[in-house]
């Protein structure tokens, strides 16, 4: 079937690619899935990435440590206990345990590929705390990407922005997207698809809303694409109300753990009082305590570094250069080193990210979503908080191994051609439209303001009530309407339009989830002023899915079984 092309200034070339397995997103999880497929099968693999896999995803600048590792004397079950307590019970035990059992093996594999890990005189890894080991993570991603480049049967498609899954009768058949630098559309048809696009940043007004708007914790290029394409295809999602807010060095939004654990710096308020004890030490309580101290007029809050040995300054400079170089530059710019001046801290804007909290696709134990043949790994996959980098690697491996076992290469990849044609027409319409009244960037700002003020952003100290959420919903709907008229003058701008649409889809989901968890289970992450306490009736997952254009909310019981399979 041929596509009718109108006589338009911009018509896109339609390329169709057949593959056994399609991986959407070439970050940590996607790359490791590709590597696993290549090493354990002869399947053809296409890995599609909107930037370039060398530095794309969360690890662009590097990573400070391996933060999910089973150190000597500990068991995977201990990690599961820790993550379960930290998330106040709203986790999937099966997912945490299957990930934790692989943390050490995937770490060893990364070391074989060239990752530098600190060892003692006996050759054992040096622990940093109870669950962490020390590494040089500056080149983590290039090491992994190089292995993928050299892997057999893997084709890398850089600079292709995927917008939609191709799904028929709840079975995935592939995905479609466009090149961001020339006028080509790529339709991938596959037997199995892994979505590994990461979480969502940029939903809320950021800490630095001006020139440094993208100096944020989470990659600003992770726009929630995978969530949005799953939501629109009818996949079930979980725990979008469990937002993640990171406690960070002020302005540079650099990690605090390196200082807190490295030089044992305490969190103190403006009066020099250590305040952690008052609020608790779970991930959300550390943020909450800092927010509260500021609300009480006891801010700014700091990590107390003044007084540390001078030589520790140099080690901190190096550690930050390996993961967040802006912090080292900031110390240089201020003229005062950490030993001379405490480091001011603040909470970030809220993110949706399944690697830290539990938001994402509702998956079975093997990471298959509720759409047949579609797997979710890494930050886009839900139920498995604090999986971090090693968890993303582990999930990539788990999904890949399940695919190798279950794939049927005889299975049809056919789907009505009109599905792709309609999408291409949509791209072309946006490219050929008269310049619209608003730009995608302007609507992004509007969206971030609504989320900030009505859905618990920085300006309301992460708090909200139902009336505010209802207003947020109404206002986001209005922006969604406006977004339908956006225009784009080139392929990069076309990506901006879809990134905004993705974020709006995720925002709607976040608001609906926040409305339906009528309790405060995690301070700051869901600080519901109408229901300020924990309600044991909400010891459940809040799940959602789009059906016939309407978002349905399901409260599911906590999964107890060791192996979970989708039933309905």
């Amino acid at each position, binding site marked *: 079937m041929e596509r009718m092309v109108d006589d338009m200034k911009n018509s896109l070339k339609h390329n169709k690619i057949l593959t056994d397995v399609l991986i959407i997103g070439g970050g940590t999880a996607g790359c490791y899935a590709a590597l696993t497929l290549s090493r354990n099968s002869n399947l053809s693999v296409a890995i599609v990435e909107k930037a370039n896999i060398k*530095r794309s995803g969360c690890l662009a600048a590097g990573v400070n440590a391996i933060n999910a590792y089973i150190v000597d004397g500990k068991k995977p079950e201990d990690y599961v206990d820790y993550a379960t307590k930290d998330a106040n019970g709203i986790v999937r035990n099966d997912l945490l345990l299957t990930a934790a059992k692989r943390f050490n093996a995937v770490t060893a594999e990364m070391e074989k590929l060239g990752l530098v890990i600190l060892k003692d005189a006996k050759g054992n890894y040096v622990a940093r705390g109870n669950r962490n080991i020390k590494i040089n993570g500056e080149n983590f991603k290039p090491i992994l990407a190089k292995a993928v480049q050299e892997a057999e049967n893997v084709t890398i498609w850089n600079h292709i922005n995927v917008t939609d899954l191709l799904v028929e009768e709840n079975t995935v058949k592939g995905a479609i997207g466009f090149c961001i630098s020339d006028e080509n559309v790529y339709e991938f048809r596959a037997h199995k698809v892994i979505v590994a696009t990461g979480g969502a940043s940029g939903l809320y007004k950021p800490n630095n809303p001006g020139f440094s708007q993208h*100096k944020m914790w989470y990659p600003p290029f992770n726009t929630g694409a995978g969530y949005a394409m799953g939501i629109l295809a009818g996949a079930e999602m979980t725990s979008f109300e469990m937002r993640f807010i990171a406690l960070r060095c002020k302005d*540079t939004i650099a990690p605090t753990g390196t200082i807190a654990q490295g030089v044992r710096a305490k969190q103190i308020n403006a009066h020099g009082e250590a305040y952690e004890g008052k609020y608790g030490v779970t991930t959300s309580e550390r943020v909450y305590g800092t927010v509260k101290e500021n609300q009480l007029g006891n801010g700014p809050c700091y990590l107390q570094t003044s007084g540390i040995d001078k030589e520790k300054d140099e080690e901190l400079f*190096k550690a930050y250069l390996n993961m967040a170089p802006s912090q080292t530059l900031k110390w240089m710019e201020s003229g005062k080193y950490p030993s001379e001046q405490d480091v001011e801290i603040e909470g970030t804007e809220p993110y949706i990210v399944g690697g830290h909290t539990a938001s994402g696709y509702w998956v079975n134990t093997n990471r298959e979503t509720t759409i047949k043949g579609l797997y979710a790994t890494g930050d886009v996959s839900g139920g498995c908080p604090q999986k971090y980098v090693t968890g993303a690697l582990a999930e990539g491996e788990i999904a890949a191994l399940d695919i190798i076992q279950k794939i049927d290469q005889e299975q049809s990849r056919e789907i009505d051609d009109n599905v792709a044609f309609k999408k291409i027409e949509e791209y072309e319409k946006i490219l050929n439209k008269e310049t619209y009244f608003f730009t995608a960037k302007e609507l992004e700002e509007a969206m971030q303001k609504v989320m900030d003020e009505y859905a618990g952003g920085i300006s309301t100290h992460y708090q909200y009530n139902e009336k505010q959420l209802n207003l947020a919903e109404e206002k986001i709907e209005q922006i969604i309407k406006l977004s339908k008229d956006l225009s784009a003058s080139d392929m990069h701008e076309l990506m901006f339009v879809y990134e905004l649409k993705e974020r709006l889809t995720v925002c709607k989901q976040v608001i609906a989830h926040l409305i339906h968890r009528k309790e405060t289970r995690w301070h700051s992450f869901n600080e519901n002023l109408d229901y300020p306490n924990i309600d044991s009736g909400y010891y459940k997952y809040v799940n959602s899915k789009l059906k016939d254009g309407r978002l349905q909310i399901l409260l599911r019981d906590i999964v107890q079984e060791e192996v979970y399979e989708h039933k309905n």
Partner: protein
Amino acid sequence: MSIRINLDKCVGCLRCIEVCPGSLIKEKDTKAFMKYPKDCWGCVSCVKECKAGAIEFYLGADIGGNGGKMNVSYEGDIIHWNITKSDGTVKVIDVNSKDSNKY
């Protein structure tokens, strides 16, 4: 937070364009051009990729930038992080890529 590209030093290898995780750098007249400075995450992938030393990283004034800038050069396993402060003084921090973080 962003980067500046020194066009006199840029040799047009375009490796920065290829590596930027936001695809923010574009080609203009055979050289690299930072098209979206406000969209920069500050990951310095491009700075590390630039063997000509043409790309400098700086902090926006809104997050404490004071006119200082940073780039890198390589010597075997050693990464020299060259930081030029606004008063012209230079501090070089050497990181051995074979050494782990101590913290």
